[in-house]
Structure formats: structure tokens, C-alpha cells
């Protein structure tokens, strides 16, 4: 482990220990929060008992679907937009302001329009994630050197092949950056949607536990979501780093 990595671990450990201490001496009371070791114990109990499995499965399935769609549709949209300058310039302001829109402010509208099923929740996750993929993929495609496109044409590749075999592979590290954002954004979208327009899923269970002062369920679920999101993010970062290292970056 490098020295920096060691410091990082120490900072996290110190924060957890501080929480533990504040809970132990009563600065943070039990109704507000359980000490970290009890949260981990409760998380273990929840996972072993399987009573939240349906909620976890629903959220993770919906998030995977939303993320996959955001990635596929995002890359395809970027590839097409990259070829149509006028269309892209028309949409640029939308992309620039997209994340300034607080989607959940439309919450009553969303319920009226979409109801409480899975599809609208996936839809919201997808909508939050897709633009990050589009914007970052476009950024990568903009950087493809002209000479690589020319070299591909000389190899007699067609337009679609140039996009798939040259432009997108070149842009891959940038696409991954977009994918990292999309993981976080789709999860935010899915969990948020479950809070307000669902009768199941981890977001719903967290909100239900909160309303019933059920800290033994609420905190472990929050920790679980954090763990999943951070793990996927770390895996993508690792992959991104490998791709960049290969290119001497």
C-alpha cells in the first residue's frame, strides 16, 4: 500500500471511530443513529435473514436496467450527434443546463403521469444518467485525431465501422468517465423515485423505516447502497486507469 493510500484508510477509520465515540458517550443518541458497529451487525442480520432481499433485488435490477439503457442509448446518441453538427448545436443548451433541473420537483406530475410501477422509476434513473454518458462520449469523440479517421478510411472502413472500430475505442476512457457518473446518477434517480412513487425497493424501505423509527433497517440499507455504488465506481475507475496507462496517460 502506498503512503497516500494508507493515509486515506486512516482518515476513514478515524471518522468511523469518531462516530463510534460520539454514539458511545451519548452526544448522538440512539434514536438519531446507531453506532457504526451495530449498523454493520444489523446489515449482516438483514442480509442473512433475507427479509430485504426482494427490495434489494428490485432496486439493483431496476438500477442495472436504467444504467445499461443510459450507457447504450447515451453512446449511440453521442455517436449520431457527433455526425450532425446542427442537431448537436441545437441540443447543446439542453445538455449544459440538464443537471440544473431538479427532476424531483416534478414529483406530483411524475406520479400523475407514470403511476407507481417499475417502468417510471427506471425511466427517471435512465433520464438522470443518460446525459452524462452523452456529454462525456461527445467529449471523447471530439478528441479523435483526424489522422486516425483518415487512416481508417484508407483501410476501407465504412462510416459505421469507423465509429465502432476507431472513434469509440479511442473515446473509451471518456465514455468510462460518463459511465461512472451514470452509475451514481441512475442510483440517485432510482432510489429517489422509490422514495416518492413506489411501494417497494430499497428507497421505499429506507423511507418506511425512517417513518417508523426503525434505525436497525434504515442505516444498514443506506450503507449497503453506498457500498454498491462505491464498488462499481471503483471498478470502473480501475478499468479507466488501465486504459489510460496503456496509452501512456
Amino acid at each position: 500500500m502506498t503512503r497516500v493510500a494508507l493515509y486515506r484508510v486512516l482518515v476513514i477509520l478515524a471518522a468511523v471511530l469518531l462516530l463510534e465515540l460520539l454514539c458511545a458517550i451519548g452526544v448522538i443518541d440512539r434514536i438519531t443513529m446507531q453506532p457504526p458497529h451495530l449498523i454493520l451487525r444489523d446489515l449482516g442480520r438483514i442480509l442473512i435473514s433475507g427479509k430485504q432481499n426482494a427490495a434489494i433485488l428490485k432496486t439493483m435490477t431496476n438500477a442495472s436496467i436504467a444504467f445499461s439503457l443510459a450507457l447504450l442509448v447515451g453512446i449511440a446518441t453521442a455517436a449520431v450527434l457527433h455526425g450532425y453538427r446542427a442537431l448537436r448545436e441545437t441540443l447543446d443548451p439542453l445538455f449544459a443546463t440538464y443537471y440544473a433541473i431538479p427532476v424531483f420537483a416534478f414529483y406530483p406530475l411524475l406520479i400523475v403521469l407514470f403511476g407507481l410501477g417499475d417502468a417510471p422509476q427506471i425511466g427517471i434513473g435512465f433520464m438522470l444518467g443518460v446525459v452524462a454518458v452523452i456529454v462525456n462520449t461527445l467529449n471523447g469523440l471530439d478528441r479523435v485525431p483526424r489522422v486516425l479517421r483518415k487512416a481508417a478510411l484508407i483501410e476501407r472502413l465504412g462510416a459505421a465501422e469507423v465509429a465502432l472500430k476507431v472513434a469509440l475505442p479511442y473515446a473509451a476512457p471518456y465514455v468510462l468517465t460518463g459511465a461512472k457518473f451514470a452509475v451514481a446518477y441512475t442510483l440517485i434517480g432510482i432510489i429517489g423515485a422509490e422514495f416518492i412513487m413506489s411501494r417497494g425497493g430499497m428507497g421505499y424501505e429506507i423511507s418506511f423505516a425512517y417513518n417508523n423509527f426503525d434505525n436497525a433497517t434504515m442505516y444498514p440499507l443506506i450503507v449497503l447502497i453506498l457500498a454498491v455504488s462505491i464498488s462499481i465506481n471503483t471498478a470502473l475507475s480501475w478499468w479507466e486507469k488501465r486504459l489510460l496507462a496503456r496509452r501512456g496517460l
Partner: protein
Amino acid sequence: MSQASAHVSLRGVTKTFPSAAGGELHALGPVDLDLRRGEFLAVVGPSGCGKSTLLELIAGLSPPTAGTIEFEGRRIAGDIPDGIGVVFQEDACFPWLSVEANVAFGLRKSAIEPAAKTKRVREVIELMGLTDFAKSYPAQLSGGMRQRVCIARTLVKEPRLILLDEPFGALDQQTRLLMGDEVLKLWRQTGATVFLITHALDEAAMLADRIAVMSARPGRLIDAVETNWPRERDSRIVERPEFGVITARLWKSLREESLKTIGRAK
């Protein structure tokens, strides 16, 4: 030489681009030029004279505005003909592919068997002295070696016409001389016709059988110099007195044109 017997033949080739002001920018031509089969032809000219445009037209990367280009008797008009390879000045290695995969990319569209492909890729990598780096990525190689990867990717297709667009422009002088030697060797071994664009008069004088001199924009051919070098030659011909005579002649033709491009013409 009649148009039919030439390997590559250009007649009245002209290129104009839409200019920023809304008018037209006359970049090139009209150019008439024939390349003999197996000939090494260099084109020199002041910067911005349309040399690279000329190469792109022959490569089929863009169609001429007027005139015709024929390669092996077939007309080229903005489509990439089979049998042509191009090496560019800029680094055109695909950075996400290993040296091996970069070279194999040249055989993407070829119909030969996978086993034969692998063999040919290995042979060309060896020919270019890259065997120890077959599994490396371009970022791990020097500029000269990356350019060798690009040459290998071109050679693996066994092109009958090789277009070189200032391929050594980004390299240092010593490496350029040595790469010149390698190109001469490959030219002899493959028997391909070579069309070299360069701004370096010594490079043109050292490598080519014939040197075409272009005017300032719009680029037209204003001189052609036969070097009469033997086919067996290498960079040591720069020691010969004829080398000095050829470079002097090229500079004489070019000096006035080069002055025009920096706005100092009489």
C-alpha cells in the same frame, strides 16, 4: 508516356475549397502528372501549396473538383481504391491496440486465411525490426518506432502504390536519414510505386527517382528533376557531388515560390 501505360495518371486535376468568406479557395491545380510503375516520385513545394491535398486526392480521401485521376487504369473519384497504402506525418497508430494488432488492422478487409494473416503480420513486424515490441502499445514506443508501426500496417497489405505524406516530418534528422534507408530498401523489395510528399529538399533528392516541384498556392507543377540514381542506393549518396547539384536545382526552382508564401515576393 501515354495515360494508359502509367501506373497513376493525373489530368487537369484541380481542387477548390469553400472559403471562410463564402467564396472559393483555389488550393490546387490544374495538375498533370504520370507515375511509372515502380517509380519513386517525390513532390516538393512551399508550405500550404496543396501537396497534402494532392496526396489525399490520389488516395481517394476526397474527390477532385475538376480533372481525372486514374490508378491502374481505373478512375479514382473520392472512393478508396484497393492496392493503395498511406503513411501520414502525424502519428496514426491506434493507441488502444498493441503493435501486433495495429499491423493486423491493415488486413481487416483482406480475404486471406487467419493463419496466413498471422504469418504475414509476423513477417512484416520482423521486417520493420519490431519483433521485440509486438505486444507493446504505441505509447511505449519512440516516435520513430511508432512511424515504423504505421509503415508496417501499410506494408502488410502489400500495396502496389504507397503514398507517404511527410512521414518523417516529426522525426529528428539522424532518424530521418535512417528511415530513408529503410524506405529505399522496402521500395526495392516490394516493387511498389512510391509517391512521397515532403518539404525537405535533401530528403527528396536522396530518395526519389524523380522530383516534381510545386508552385505556391494554387499548387501547380513547375519543374521535374530526374535524379538518375541507381536503384541500389542508400543515404550515403548525400556525399556525391550530384546530390548537391540536384538540391541546388530544386532550391532554385523553389526559392521564388517559397518567398511568395511568406509574402516577400518581388
